[in-house]
């Protein structure tokens, strides 16, 4: 029963990673941009939520109505005025710029909030669980997180499959020059993609903040988990990212069971094993041309 319990906890933890990684997957898919500041930007959302919670006395979940529009705006402006200038010159400039941005964000957060651990208190939901048997209980918060992750990924997938903007995203991903021939302003579209990505990162950041404590430098480790989820699942596939997050989450929880210090390492080992055995990931979208 302990193992069943662990696997369930791992799956639910995977939902959180997937939520966090879906934005990364989206922007890589649309504009081939590797955003090394994704983790720190999601951390920004957690600190913004902290400001709202402290300042207005709101519940952290409610703070999302302020945090998410702000993240949307940050994403759009960041892409339009900074990151768009780094594209079209190969993969190196965006890497350097987003790496620098990550360092800047960490230090600004450190300056503003000190190095203390912070937490978001969502109240009762954090310590209530559905008891399935005397030895098996599933917490409401991880369950809610998983539900939100599935809803966000499902929503993104529907958006990409069914709406005109979604088709524009996929067309631009296929061929950015041809997209301009049908009248797509790709710089604006990229801005919109980053805005959406940071909204998902913002949701993930706040949920992580509720689940556990966070510090100004927490973003970089999260970024690694998110990338591992994306790579395990296969680039360009959102449901793959969810599966990747789950694989990573289960590996980490089972690893922690063997030894509390072994969890993160177990995740890395599974990631490396998949890179070695199936480098295109579990659910890679096939690429033609």
């Amino acid at each position: 029963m302990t193992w069943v319990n662990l696997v369930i906890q791992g799956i639910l933890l995977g939902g959180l990673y997937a939520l966090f990684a879906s934005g990364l997957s989206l922007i890589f898919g649309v504009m081939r941009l590797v955003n090394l500041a994704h983790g720190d930007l999601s951390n920004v959302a957690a600190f913004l939520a902290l400001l709202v919670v402290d300042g207005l006395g709101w519940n952290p979940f409610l703070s999302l109505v302020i945090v998410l529009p702000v993240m949307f705006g940050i994403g759009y402006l960041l892409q339009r005025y900074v990151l768009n200038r780094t594209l079209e010159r190969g993969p190196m400039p965006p890497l350097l710029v987003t790496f620098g941005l990550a360092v800047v964000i960490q230090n600004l957060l450190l300056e503003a909030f000190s190095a203390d651990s912070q937490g978001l208190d969502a109240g009762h939901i954090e310590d209530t669980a559905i008891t399935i048997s005397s030895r098996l209980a599933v917490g409401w918060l991880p369950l809610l997180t998983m539900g939100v992750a599935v809803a966000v990924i499902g929503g993104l997938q529907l958006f990409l499959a069914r709406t005109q903007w979604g088709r524009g995203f996929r067309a631009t991903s296929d061929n950015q020059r041809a997209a301009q021939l049908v009248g797509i302003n790709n710089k604006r579209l990229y801005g919109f993609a980053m805005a959406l990505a940071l909204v998902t990162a913002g949701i993930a950041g706040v949920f992580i903040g509720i689940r556990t404590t966070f510090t100004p430098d927490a973003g970089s480790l999260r970024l690694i988990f998110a990338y591992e989820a994306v790579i395990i699942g296969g680039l360009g596939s959102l449901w793959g990212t969810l599966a990747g997050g789950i694989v990573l989450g289960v590996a980490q929880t089972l690893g922690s069971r063997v030894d509390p210090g072994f969890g993160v390492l177990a995740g890395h080992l599974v990631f490396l094993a998949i890179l070695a055995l199936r480098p295109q990931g579990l659910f890679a979208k096939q690429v033609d041309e």
Partner: protein
Amino acid sequence: MSLLEVKGVNAHYGPFQALFQMDLKVEEGGTIAVIGANGAGKSTLLKVISGVMPCSAGEVLFDGAAVHGLPGHERVARGISLVPEGRRIFPSLSVHENLLVGGWVKRPGPWSPDKVYELFPLLVKRREQRAGTLSGGEQQALAIGRGLMSNPRLLLLDEASLGLAPIVVRSLYKAMPTIVQEGTTLLVVEQDIGQAVSVADRVYCLLEGRVVLSGSPAELTREQISAAYFGVRRR
């Protein structure tokens, strides 16, 4: 006023100059053919008109307004649409989605996916198929259909017949009169003189980045055209 006026345009690829003081006028309605050998500057001309490539001198006027400073996507909104050489359809989107994305700028006009299927019936049974899996001729038909979906006033067709079997080319060219009837002016670039001249109301012949001959197909003799095409001086 002419629909399109290209005035004294130069264009460069790095140090290489591809267009020299290019002048060209397109009146609304009908079909214009630009012919010339490989490297004469035909594709470059279309790239400059559509905004894929900047011109280094001169101006491009569309409906009397200067458009050479506008990015390509804004020119689509004004009514200039390019069907590029090599077709460049979106391979991971279905045929139908390619057409829907073609209508991105929402210019009002007669064209809809259904109308494109009517024009190119070969696309009908491919509707839900990924465009990357289509044959060359089907992809070319789709590329033209996608270009029409923005309801352009001027449709630029770059080497539509390239790499296609003659029978496929003939069926594509059979669609041209319908396109013109619906109010779109066609500017067709071809290496294949016969095909282009047969549909054109006016022909421009380019040689090494310059217009060396122009006129209506009726006025021009075969000898004049081939002399201009190959750059042979008549004595």
